[in-house]
């Protein structure tokens, strides 16, 4: 991956998708769960942005928020902004949103075995997308569906197009789902753990396929996974999420070489084989807390090996890790690392207060 060239042009290019202070909360009888709590990131054309984190860290809710698929009791809170190609998505009506779904932004889900409707043929489901967004019908649509299946590497596509999902293997089904997602030439493809349910060889094939398609179509991809290996393989840029917040954001090589946030460090240490001389695999003790109140402290503090007193008092904001860091932010009171601890804490404190003021 041509990391260096990309980062040079990155800031100049207009982002395709720009998420600003996205907050999605679920209002249950008992409590309000802030599944996504004020995250911001950009995706540019032709770029793959990875979102990584444990189960329950808000990755999938982020994807669904962008797709406008958050169901009640969930709601995107006021003050959130999702801009796609210059348009604000959060203000769109349901009807306007439907044109974007599948048309401009497509999504591939986690489990290929269940993401195709079992009672309709694969071709029928691809053609449905073509009809909805491009008004294609009949023989022309069939032709296009066959081309799409061929493009995702399904052999004998003209026969396969008439078959039902249960006649496809797992890997083939995920290819079919990808074909369906690509049917209307989207500009952004959201992949929500597309390889989790597949075995490793198939996983590698699917990742390669996505890579090829990205190159051919100049796709922007948002790649959600909890697998650090997959992230390293696919992404140009990584956002690490924890309990609804982005805790670290950096280009992929920088992140793997110099992880700054204690959580990212923990994640990387817990990859089997990364610490060859250790007896036991290192883990991060405990679970992701349920974010059910506005954060006025660091949500990772209970599990953090480097926690200190201020962590329970000051909410860390995303800051550049040091003065000459290029595009590497971490939400941790230890940074900016070139300032003294007191000053660093003060920076976060000030930023947090500023934000509150602007929010009100």
């Amino acid at each position, binding site marked *: 991956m041509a990391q260096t060239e990309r980062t040079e042009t990155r800031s100049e290019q207009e982002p395709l998708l720009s998420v600003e202070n996205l907050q999605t909360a679920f209002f249950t009888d008992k409590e309000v769960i802030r599944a996504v709590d004020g995250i911001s990131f950009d995706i540019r054309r032709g770029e793959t942005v990875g979102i990584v984190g444990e189960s329950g860290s808000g990755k999938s809710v982020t994807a669904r928020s962008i797709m406008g698929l958050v169901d009640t009791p969930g709601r995107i809170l006021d003050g959130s902004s999702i801009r796609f190609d210059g348009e604000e998505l959060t203000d769109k009506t349901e009807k306007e949103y439907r044109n974007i779904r599948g048309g401009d932004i497509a999504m591939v889900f986690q489990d290929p075995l269940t993401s195709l409707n*079992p*009672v309709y043929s694969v071709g029928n489901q691809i053609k*449905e997308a073509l009809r909805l967004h491009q008004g294609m019908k009949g023989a022309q649509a069939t032709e296009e569906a066959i081309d799409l299946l061929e493009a995702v590497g399904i052999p004998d596509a003209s026969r396969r197009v008439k078959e039902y999902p249960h006649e496809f293997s797992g890997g083939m089904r995920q290819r079919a789902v990808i074909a369906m997602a690509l049917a209307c030439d989207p500009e952004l493809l959201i992949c929500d753990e597309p390889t989790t349910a597949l075995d490793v060889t198939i996983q590698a094939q699917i990742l390669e396929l996505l890579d090829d398609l990205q190159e051919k179509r100049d796709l922007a991809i948002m790649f959600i996974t909890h697998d650090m290996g997959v992230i390293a393989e696919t992404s140009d840029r990584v956002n690490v999420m924890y309990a609804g917040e982005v805790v670290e954001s950096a280009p992929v090589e920088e992140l793997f070489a110099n992880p700054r946030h204690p959580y990212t460090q923990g994640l990387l240490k817990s990859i089997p084989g990364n610490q060859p001389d250790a007896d036991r695999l290192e883990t991060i003790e405990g679970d992701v807390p349920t974010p059910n109140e506005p954060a006025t402290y660091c949500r990772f503090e209970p599990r953090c090996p480097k926690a200190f007193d201020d962590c329970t008092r000051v909410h860390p904001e995303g800051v550049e890790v040091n003065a000459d860091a290029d595009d590497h932010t971490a939400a941790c009171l230890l940074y900016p690392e070139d300032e003294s601890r007191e000053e660093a804490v003060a920076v976060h404190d000030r930023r947090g207060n500023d934000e509150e003021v602007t929010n009100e």
Partner: protein
Amino acid sequence: MSRWRYFAKRVLLSIPVLVFGASITFLVIRAGPLDPVSAILGPQGDPQAYEAIERRLGLNQPLWQQYIDYMVRLFTFDLGQSWVVQPNTSVYELVLSYAPRTIWLGFWSVLIAIFIGIPLGFYAGLNPNTFSDYVASFGGIVWRAMPNFWLAVILMSVLSQSEKILFGFDWEAWLVPTIVTGPPPLPDPIWGLFTNPDQFLRALKKIAPAAIVLGSASMGNEMRIGRTAVLETINSNYIETAKAKGVPPRSLVWKHIFRNALIPLVPIITGEAFLLIGGSVLVETVFDISGIGFLFFQGITNGDMPLVGSLMFIFILLVVVINIVQDLLYTIIDPRVGYDGGN
């Protein structure tokens, strides 16, 4: 294997079922306390006449001989003559004169269940945990829980004096004058129903209480299962995928949810058809509709062996046919159902 070969196989395989069913019927009839001879003779018959009649009916022959005669007749569709209920009338004739009323009753009770139960269930499933869902679900449970013999009696007594109970609403005089009990007035050539709207209305109104009673349990059942099926489908991944594809809500419901939710309903609907056979015996007796169920009941209480055996055989045949129809529906609705077993 093609669809048609599959069905040829199914039909072939249903023959042992028929043989088994007919044999059990024979056993139950002969082993039970049915005594057609004394039913014909009355309580004070003399032994000589008794023996004469026994000989005439072939009841003095060894059981295996009777069994073979019985089976051969059934499977050559020679259903014989009634002994007691209407002596010397062929069973065919009896069935032809009694069946239209039962078919009329069964038709409406299945229809009521399908056209009220399923839409209500789907509506409740599409709007889960709303007030209307609770009303529909609760109604479904209550409806399901009322046994039809009880409901039949209550409905009959309420409707026959409705002007006293239902604030002056007089059911018997409403639209067309009818009384609650008694057979529906079906015109003699049956297609008179479709040419004469007044006849149709009269026959429909007459059968409505019985059809509601007979369809009530099925209706509640189909409502509950329909609701569950929709809820299960609506939360499945392929619905999410379809949403992410930009499918509008209407086509989401009718194309993606409806057909999948129908799959678990198929055996429920066809299963209900079996219940109707048993239920119609009860309901027809209460509402005094002289249909097949009533005829069957008469046949049993009078020990009319050929009538009971033949009617049982017809019921078994019906069940087998309904089962095959059910499998046909399955292969149409759900492409995952294979023809060659395994795979």
